[in-house]
């Protein structure tokens, strides 16, 4: 029987209360360890389609008569379009429609950043649409632009209310500490730069709108588009079969979708609106810059007694105030903590969620600070972390926490530091650094799945989730195959279409697997139960003696071993499943530690990451191969943020300068070090019928600090700013030379 309950839901550290429908009779978790299919390596179900170019991405959608859209964007960091004349553009060849400020959501007369969308033109070709933009006459009134975050704090130009947090007595604890370390850390703006730029194709058939879009949340786009166009949500169908990356930047519909939908309505033609790579680097979201003034106080025995942080988040014209102090509050046992967070609104491109928003930035500051403390205390950094292990999340028990196991697994990598350092020479200094990680990733309800088992003995998982490239399609197939007792190649997953399957989760906050997996397993269990019921009736056996395994209905006495396609004949089975609630009164978190080995050319400031060992605790691993791929992706993206990527603006005009991929430098394969990946792989016994947490975000969190700490180990230089360019590296090296010698780095 369906049961309605009220429960708490978390995405990227933001909590809300939701009503959900859950099934009775929750399933027992499988025992820990690899099963027939789950917990083993599985190649992507869609690998062949992808490599053959058959996988259909939004960028591949070409509908008959489809128009192309170009977007007019503000050249000014802050200005108002007092008058705008679209008529000359509409008169040009091939132009079929245009819209201006206020005509659709996201296109505003007040442009808050250089690149803000103001008007859009749809034409037969993109070239025609683009050419027509020049014909639009805009009368701009320039307004004051604020580009300096510190000035914005002074003037209280907050994007959100400042957040103050306090536990214990920070001041007193600091005064009583034997050692105090302070540091100011800065992180820069980085851009997602997904391989597939933000884009949508919209087509009306009658009063129903189909939106093909590159998104992390087909259901969210459905609701947003319905609201933007003032039509019922069930008149909007959203399709995203394959998706070329989002990393948080595609959690919502975006104005390009609204423009395509509205222009399609006006012209009666399908309309495509796709950002160019240059627009993608300008107006598709970013990880905001931060300034972090951090303080730690400790007793000489290594006990951390006080932690403080003042955070400035330079948000741009949009975005939200992320919990950047989260790691400082959560990673270590410390009774006295005080933090203040100021998110300021600047005339810069808007921030959007980016793979562990806030925690990537906050962990860089915190974990560098902890290492600097270790140097001051002359305590091994790994030992210092163990000594201050947090037993609860500010009083709330963890549903599971195996960070200590991570530390143990990391020991052998940490031990390499003697040998690594010994490979230093006059110019190349080598060292090893580590950093820990805490993050959310428990997922939550609601999410639903169906599992259809046909007379061909094959199963189809049907759910309107999306696979944003992380391989969840494969993980869901593994879960269903495991529960159904079918080989993996007899399970398909159909997803990415709101009209073909039940509601499913947003793919953000490392939540897809922990949210969807339990629903898929529940649906598969429901189907399995029905198969057993049918077998029992056909063969006049008791249900409890029948099992389904390797595609066979099997009785415990061995007399029955019938292929299920034979058993079912022309029967169709439909199992239904829902995601249950998360455990109440518990903190569901992910943990990990990474150990980085670097080489620093002390003359030219070049930093090379030579090896990264990543050890993570995310509950049960579904696909060991897919999980490794997630870790590698996170580490590589994090190396980019640490060493070479930075979005630059012209300080005078506020315009983005790094608009192409030769100026915005992501790592190439030649920049990728050896990445060793290990998992604790212990199911969280309190979390759902799977015990699995998410892995999308954890691997990117500790890498920057691990690299910075390795640099300190190698050279004695304290790096305080991302990216660690040659300029920053040479500055830090010079500062280290001027500093009083403080003995050997990181005691053994």
């Amino acid at each position, binding site marked *: 029987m369906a049961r309605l309950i009220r429960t708490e839901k978390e995405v990227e550290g933001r909590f809300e209360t939701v009503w959900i429908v859950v099934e009775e009779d929750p399933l027992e978790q499988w025992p820990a360890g690899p099963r027939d299919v789950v917990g083993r390596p599985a190649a992507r179900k869609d690998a062949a389609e992808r490599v053959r170019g058959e996988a259909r991405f939004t960028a591949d959608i070409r509908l008959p008569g489809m128009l192309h859209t170009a977007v007019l964007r503000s050249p000014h960091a802050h200005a108002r379009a007092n008058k705008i004349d679209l008529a000359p553009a509409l008169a040009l060849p091939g132009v079929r429609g245009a819209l201006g400020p206020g005509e659709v959501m996201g296109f505003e007369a007040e442009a808050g950043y250089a690149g803000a969308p103001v008007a859009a033109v749809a034409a037969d070709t993109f070239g025609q649409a683009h050419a027509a933009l020049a014909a639009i006459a805009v009368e701009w009134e320039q307004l004051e632009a604020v580009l300096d975050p510190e000035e914005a704090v002074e003037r209280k130009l907050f994007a959100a209310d400042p957040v103050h947090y306090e536990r214990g007595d920070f001041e007193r604890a600091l005064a009583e500490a034997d050692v105090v370390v302070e540091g100011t850390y800065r992180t820069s703006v980085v851009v997602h730069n997904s391989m597939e730029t933000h884009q949508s194709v919209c087509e009306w058939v009658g009063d129903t709108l189909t939106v093909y879009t590159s998104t992390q949340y087909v259901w969210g786009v459905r609701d947003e588009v319905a609201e933007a166009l003032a039509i019922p949500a069930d008149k909007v169908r959203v399709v995203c079969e394959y998706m070329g990356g989002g990393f948080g930047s595609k959690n919502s519909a975006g104005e390009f979708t609204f423009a395509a939908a509205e222009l399609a309505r006006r012209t009666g033609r399908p309309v495509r609106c796709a950002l160019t790579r240059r627009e993608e680097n300008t107006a598709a979201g970013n990880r905001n810059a931060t300034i972090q003034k951090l303080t730690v106080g400790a007793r000489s025995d290594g006990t951390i007694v006080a932690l403080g942080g003042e955070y400035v988040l330079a948000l741009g014209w949009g975005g939200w105030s992320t919990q950047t102090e989260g790691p400082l509050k959560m990673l270590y046992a410390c009774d006295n903590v005080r933090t203040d967070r100021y998110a300021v609104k600047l005339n810069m491109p808007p921030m959007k969620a980016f793979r562990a928003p806030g925690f990537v930035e906050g962990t860089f500051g915190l974990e560098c600070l902890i290492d600097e403390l270790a140097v001051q205390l002359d305590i091994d950094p790994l030992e210092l972390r163990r000594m201050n292990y947090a037993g609860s999340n500010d009083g709330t028990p963890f549903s599971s926490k195996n960070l200590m196991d991570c530390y143990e697994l990391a020991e052998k990598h940490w031990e390499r530091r003697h040998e690594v350092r010994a490979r230093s020479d006059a110019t190349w200094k080598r060292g090893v650094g580590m950093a820990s990680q805490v993050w959310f990733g428990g997922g939550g309800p609601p999410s639903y799945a169906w599992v259809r088992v046909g007379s061909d003995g094959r199963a189809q998982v049907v759910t309107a989730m999306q696979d944003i490239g992380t391989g969840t399609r494969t993980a869901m197939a593994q879960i269903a195959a495991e529960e159904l007792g079918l080989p993996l190649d007899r399970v398909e997953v159909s997803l990415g279409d709101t009209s073909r399957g039940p509601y499913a989760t947003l793919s953000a906050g490392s939540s897809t697997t922990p949210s969807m997996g339990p629903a898929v397993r529940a649906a598969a269990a429901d189907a399995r139960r029905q198969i057993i019921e049918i077998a029992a009736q056909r063969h006049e056996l008791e249900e409890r003696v029948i099992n389904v395994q390797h595609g066979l209905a099997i009785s415990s006495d061995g007399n029955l071993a019938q292929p299920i396609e034979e058993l079912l004949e022309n029967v169709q089975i439909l199992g239904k499943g829902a995601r249950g609630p998360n455990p109440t009164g518990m903190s569901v978190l992910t943990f990990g530690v990474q150990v980085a080995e670097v080489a620093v*050319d002390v*003359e*030219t*400031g*070049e930093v090379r990451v030579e090896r990264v060992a990543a050890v993570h605790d995310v509950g049960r691993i579904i696909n060991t191969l897919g999980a490794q791929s997630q870790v590698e992706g996170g580490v590589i993206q994090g190396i980019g943020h640490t*060493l*070479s990527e930075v979005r*630059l*603006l*012209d*300080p*005078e005009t506020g*315009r983005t*300068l*790094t*608009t*192409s991929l*030769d*100026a915005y*430098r992501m*790592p*190439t*394969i*030649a*920049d990728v070090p050896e990445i060793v990946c290990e998992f604790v792989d212990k199911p969280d016994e309190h979390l759902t019928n799977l015990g699995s947490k998410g892995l999308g975000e954890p691997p990117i969190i500790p890498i920057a600090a691990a690299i910075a700490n390795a640099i300190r180990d190698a050279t004695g230089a304290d790096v305080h700013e991302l990216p660690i*360019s*040659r*300029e920053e590296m*040479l*500055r830090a090296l010079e500062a280290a030379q001027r500093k009083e010698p403080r003995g050997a780095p990181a005691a053994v």
Partner: protein
Amino acid sequence: MELLRPSSVDELDGGVFVHGGTEVVPLMRDGLLAARTLVDIRDVVPSGVRGRTIGAGTTLAELEADGTIPDALREACRLAASPQLRSMSSLGGNLLQSTRCWYWRLQYPCRLHGGDRCHAREGEHREHAIFANDFCASAHPSDPAAALLALGTRVRTNLRELDLGDLYQLPTQKRREIVTLERGELILELELPAVEASVYLKAMDRQRWAFPQVGVAAAKAGGETRIALAGVAPIPWLLGSLEDATPLPRTAWKVDVAQALVRRALAQLG
């Protein structure tokens, strides 16, 4: 727009020359180069290495794999761009490429575009010039150009012969172009003098597909060593002394990097 495919130098008559297209096509797409007529010169420009003569149509990919050319040029080609780009781009085209200065690329009305100020000087210039940066702080992006300059290369065009150094001039109030070729002039071949040893070292902010932060080419011939730098001035820079550098506030680090690389290059030459 029309595309012409002449088969000899004699047929050339105006238009914008295109070889691999790795520079011309992006420039046109970004509105930095307008062309009514594109002239595909692949059948006009010699290609391949004959002794110390290199056809300007030889691709960087061919050169990076050629054991007969001086080390500095081979290494400069190997460290340039990406494998895909090197397979397409010609040596001649590489020498004529435009700066990566973001202000110029984004069409700020800077001095190279005929304007009256250098936006980089007061703006974002962490990758810009440390020499001759008073009028324009752009940095020349060609690795092979620095190598060829150090090697003392002669250039043969359809109109004349000149030193590689004379192919470039610093931009001035009167003449904003950095390349001295006349309209319709085309680089055909490069003539390398004999050298005893040469080397090219490059600092970049990732291992592949990055323009030089600082590129250092050094060549030894007849007891004389010539050093040329990429990425430090609006044109390929024949080095006198790094003491004479005039870095901007955010380019001082480049002087340190150049010093280290010059020292290493000289050490490698022995």
